[in-house]
Structures are given as C-alpha cells and as structure tokens.
C-alpha cells in the first residue's frame, strides 16, 4: 500500500507541531471530501453534452443543416476533462499510520518538555526504499542484488523538564532482493519478482541523564532479551552517564503505546537521588 510522502522537520514547541499535523490532516480531509463530493460532476457534464449531439443528429436526419450544437458537446467534454484532471490532481494517498503514532508520542511528551525548549528532529514518512536510505547492497554469485535499507522515520530530541535529554530514533529496516531473470529447472528464463528478505523495526532510546537528579541503576526487568510490548531488548548501555536502549520488533505497525512503553522502560534504569 502506498502512502502520501510526508516529511516534517521538527524544531518547535509541541503545540505548533501538533497543530501543524492536525492542519495537515484537516487539509487532507478537505481535499478528500471535495474529491468525493465532486467526482461525479465531470461525468455529469460529460453526459450533459450528449443531448446536444442528439439535437444535431436529429436535425440532420430531418434534412436540416448542421446546427452547431455539437460545439456545446465539445465544450462540455473539454470542460469535463479539465475538471476531471484538476480534481485528480488534489487526490492523494492516505497518510502513513506512523504519522498518527508520531503525533501521539509528541502529544504525550508535550508536558515533559523543559520550558522554552523545543522538539528537534524529523518525521520522515517518504518511504523506506530510497537510495539515500540504503545501508548496503550485496550481489550473490548468481548476480542477484539484495539491498538493506534503514528508514529512520522518527528522530526526536527533547530536553525534558527533569534536565534529561531524550533522544528517540525509530528505524524501519528492510532487506529486499531485487527482481531478476532467473533460469528454472526446465532451462526457461523466468522473471522473478522482488522479494522481502527481512522486515523489522528498531527503536533506539537514549537518555542523557541529569546527574544532579538521577543515578543510573540496573533493573531486573530490563535485561537483554526482555520483552517490552512487542519489542525485545537487543542492547543496553549505561556507560558515560547515558542510558541507551536498543529494541527491535518484527511487528510491522508501531503504536504510540509501544514506543512510549520503551521510553518508560528506559526510565526504570534511573533512580531519583534523594
């Protein structure tokens, strides 16, 4: 399924960001509503021209000269075509569900942000399979090309109210073999379509800890291999005054709750100083 390629650069307080995303959704809804309300009008105009052709044909059938009514038919059809093309231009695919996920994450974190500080980063929903997102490209002995993409669709940095600096990086990793001409057992060449060889989400959460307020501790609940919602913990690093949590899941669709659960899990590794 293809989605509208949305890219939002973040560098503002939560409220303007949320309003902008809401505005984007409202615009989308308006164009969708306009399209659905008006898509029959060009067809109506197309049909409305036909009686004029009939008048001309009838006139000629009864021996009268060409009346020129067909001009109206031509104009109606031309107008219908222009209207149809203009209407088609505003039609757009749905937004990726991750836009809503991102919105919810920002909305949840909005009160935790330090006053006067901003959310930084981006929401990149332009799609994973782009050259600039390619990590590696391998060719096997049969000449088949496999590409590994890393789509960092959410990158967020925020200075929190408690003085910690939170960095969130949500990545969609795709391994895909390109389509190729293969030779079957019968010796015939066959077109083999592109094939997914791997598809998972990776979430990196890094908290630069405010040493005045927190100390880093270990938690029996958060170990390598622990399960947080759909994510499993792949890596934990608590060195250098920072907590870095790397989680992965093969679940294809992120929910805000999944991401926020990982953020919350990162905080279980911090203990407030008395």
């Amino acid at each position, binding site marked *: 399924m293809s989605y*509208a*390629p*949305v*890219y*939002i*650069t*973040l*560098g*503002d*307080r939560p409220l*303007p*960001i949320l309003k*902008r995303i809401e*505005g*984007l959704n409202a*615009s*989308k809804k*308006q*164009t969708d509503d*306009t399209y659905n309300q*008006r898509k029959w*009008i060009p067809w109506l*105009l197309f049909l409305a021209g036909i009686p*004029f052709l009939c008048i001309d044909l009838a006139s000629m059938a*009864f*021996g*009268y*000269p060409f*009346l*020129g*009514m067909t*001009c*109206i038919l031509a*104009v*109606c059809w031309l*107008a*219908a075509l*222009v*209207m149809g093309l*203009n*209407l088609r*231009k*505003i039609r*757009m695919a749905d937004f990726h569900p991750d836009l809503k996920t991102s919105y919810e994450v920002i909305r949840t974190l909005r009160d935790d942000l330090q006053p*006067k*500080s*901003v959310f*930084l*980063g981006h929401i990149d929903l332009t799609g994973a399979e782009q*050259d*600039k*997102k*390619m*990590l*590696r*490209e391998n060719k096997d002995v049969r000449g088949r090309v496999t590409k590994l993409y890393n789509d960092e669709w959410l*990158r967020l*940095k925020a*200075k929190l109210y408690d003085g910690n600096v939170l960095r969130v990086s949500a990545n969609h990793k795709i391994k895909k073999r390109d389509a190729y001409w293969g030779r079957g057992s019968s010796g015939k060449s066959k077109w083999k379509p592109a094939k997914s060889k791997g598809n998972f989400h990776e979430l990196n959460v890094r908290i630069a800890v405010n040493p005045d307020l927190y100390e880093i501790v270990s938690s029996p609940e958060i170990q390598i291999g622990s399960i947080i919602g759909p994510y499993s913990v792949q890596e934990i690093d608590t060195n250098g005054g920072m907590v870095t949590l790397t989680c992965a899941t093969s679940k294809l669709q992120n929910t805000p709750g999944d991401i926020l659960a990982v953020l919350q899990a990162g905080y279980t590794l911090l203990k407030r100083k008395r």
Partner: protein
Amino acid sequence: MFKPAIIFAVILSMMVMAVSCLVTFLGLSQGAKVDSQTALSLPYSGTVHSMKIIDLSGDGVNDLFVQTDSQVLVYDNNQQVVIDQSYQAPLATTMGDLDGNGREDILVFYGPATNTRASIFLNGSFSTEVRIDDVRDASRAAIIPFQGQRLGILGDTNGNLVAIDQNGRVVWRASLSSGDYIRGLDDARINGEVFVAAANHDGTVGLFDANGQQRWSYKLSGALRRMRAFDLNGDGTSEILLGGDGGTLVVLDGGTGQPIFTKSLGQTIVEIREAELNGEPSSREIVVGGRSNGVWGIDLAGNVLWSSTASARVSQIGLLDVDANGSEDVLVGDESGKVTLFRADNGSSNSIQTFSGAVERMDIGNFTASGQAAIASAGQITVLKINYVQLGFMRFMPLLIGLFVSLAIFVAAGFIASIPAKPDLRISVTEQSREALIAQRRMLKESIADVERLRGLGDVTSDAYLARLKDLRHQLADNEASILKAGIKINVETQSCPNCGGTLMLAADKCEYCGQVVLH
C-alpha cells in the same frame, strides 16, 4: 481577489459571446432545409430531347411540352394529352410566338435530308406543314421575333440555316459553315434590335439579321457544346456565351463578336445558363456545368463567385429562387440521376432527389403549382415541388450555443477555482527563536556526525552517504541563514558549490557531489 481561472473564464466567455452575437446578427446561421415532394409522374418512351413548362393553349395556365426521339407531346394542366404527334426522326422543336398574337406556338423541324419538313402549331393546334428542300437532316430550330416579322429558323446537319414565316414560306437561306451540324440557335440583341445567333458544332459562331445577312463570325477552338445569348448587363446588347470541348468559357460581345473575356475551367463545358446569383439586379451572372461534374457561378467580369461539384457529369441546369431572397438557386441534374440544389450565394449543395437513370431534361416553372421542377429521367417525367423550410428559432441558435458554452466555461472555472489546494507534504515546523535555532543547529550537527559515523563503520553506501549528507548540510545552511537573519552571531560553517549548488562544509576544497574544485 479573483482567481485566474475565473478571469480566464470571463475573457473566454466574452470572446464566445462576441462570436455568437456576430454570427446571429449577421444572419450567418440559416437553419433551413430544401426538400421536395413529387407532384405527379408521367411516362414517356425513348429519350426526352426537349421539355418545357409553357402556356401553349393561351388559357393562362401552363402546359407541359415534351419532345422525344420522334414524338411531340403536350400535357395540359390536368395531365391530359392535348397534342400527341409522331414524326420521322431526327427531330428538332422550338416554342415561341410565331404569329405575333402573344401566344406561344410550336415549330417542329424534322426528317432526314430526303424528306425534311417543318410543321407549325399555332394557338395550340396544328396549322401547316411544309417541305424544306436543299437541306440535310434536321438539327435545330428557333423562333426569333425580328422587328417587323417573326421567323422560324431551322438549322440542319450541314451548317445551313433556313428562315420560314408562320405559313411555312421560306424567307431566306444562309450558311454558317459546312460539314457539321447546327448546335445552337438563340435570339440576340444589338441595341435592342433582334438578331439570330447561330453556332455550329465545329465551333463557328455567327450573327444574322432579319434578312439573313451575317454580321460577324467567330471561331471557337475545339468542338462547341453550348451557345447561349443573354443580355447580362442590361445594356440592350446581348453577350454570346460559348462553351465546348476546349474547357474554356468564352463570352462574346453580341455587337462585334469580339471576346469580352475567356475563362478556362479545365473540363468540357456541357451547359451554360444565365442566373441572378448575387441578388444585384443590374447584372446577371452565369452558371456553367462541366463534363467532369464541375459547377461554377461566374460574374460578368469573369470572376468565379463559387465552384462546386455535382455527383456526375452535369446534364441539365435549372434556376429557382427557393428561399425568395432575390437570388436564383441552381438546380443541377446529372448523369447519375441525382438532382442537387446549389445555393446562389455560396454554392453549398442540398441533395433534392435521385432518379434511377440519367437526368435527360429538366425545366423549372409553374405547372400544377408554383416553383415546380419537371425532370425527365428513365422513362418518367417527374414534377417535383421544391420546398424551402426554415426554422425561425434557428436565427438565434448561435446565441443559445454561446450561452451554453459560456455556462459550461463558468461551471468549469468555478469548479476549478473552488478546489482546495493540495497540502504541502514537505513541511517545516521550526521556531525562529534564538534557543530553537541554536538547538536545531546542534541537532543537525549531531545528525551529520551520525551519518559520518555510519560511513566510518561501513554501514552506509557511498551514494546514500552523499545524499543524506547533502540533505543535512542543506538544512544546516538554511539554519545558518535563519540564525544570521535573527541577528545571532555564529561562525558560518557551510558554503555552496559554485558548480552544482550543493552545500559543503566551509573547509572543503572539493565538492563531494560533483567533484568541482572549490577555491576559497
């Protein structure tokens, strides 16, 4: 205030309405049709060589005169045969007032060289028949109303002319040329005085006075097919119109026999008629029919007013003012049996009727009703009533069309203008405060460092590295510009490649994207 689509629609609609008004008020839209109804049909045998709707009985009601290969028939207005006379072929007939009583008489010139005779019908009944000696086969006849006496002129197949009076007495004899047949006889005027114009098939044309004296002669190159004499410009002197195999229309001055103009039409001329085509009553125009289907309307200066084509070789031309506008429309019968009406003003054609055989003869007149065309074809004389039917509201049709077109334009323009703009999908939500801009700058530098770290680890391809770096550096350059605009002092760290425009770090001496050397 107004969207471009609306402005465009207003301009376009004004143009459409201007054209509509122009077409409407100049009367360019006629919305009329010409059709025909068969009034009656009469059978005949053989081929019709002459046919005319004419009052031969003097009762004020027209009769129908028909001459076939060897028969003369006259039908009265009730389609009753009033004259049915057979003759020895060949046969030539003519009608005119021979006895000067104001009624049309009939002169029949018939028979082979051994027994050539002239038969005269006066006032609708047989009057006399005389033998004409010293001539060859009968070819042509005409009644000419000379001053002082009305004579019947007889032409044979050897170029001889014989003038007889109403009693059949020979008044004079003359010879136009020998060896070929008389193809045309017509009355011509010089300053109002009547003469007879005679034409031989060999191309010789001559003008004879009431005493048989030849005034002038002219030789047309090639065989002559048609000779007509008309006073086209109303000056009292006829113009002699000639056409033949040479494909050239020649118009002679009746007074001198000198050409007024010649017009090459590129095909054999088979029929010539005078007509009122342009509605200008001070002069008459010429309609010419060609062997290769051509039909022309030509004025007295030799200008072609219009040209068109019939379905086949033109055989007959008739004239009828179907729409009563003062111009005579041209009815053409052709060898395929099709009768077509060509409009006087532009030559546009309307098919009237198609017969099963070639149109042999055609005459326009008031037989049982006004505006009828009698057409002889395939053993049947069909009298057609030609109707001109006009739709009154058609005059305003262009205006109506203009309004509909304008409406469609406005609907389309309103539709387009009211479509909401597609939302921009690449947006930036960035605060322009000092803190936010500096934080963004730091974030971008972190992102650049991340990409470079991945590059160092070999976790990104060269192309992807450059593309991402280019993107991030471009954002960094935008950020720097915003910072400088906000009046915050920073050390600028980016520059643009003079070749590709890509954003480079300030220290770079070579563009990573295009390879251009960058000089500081």
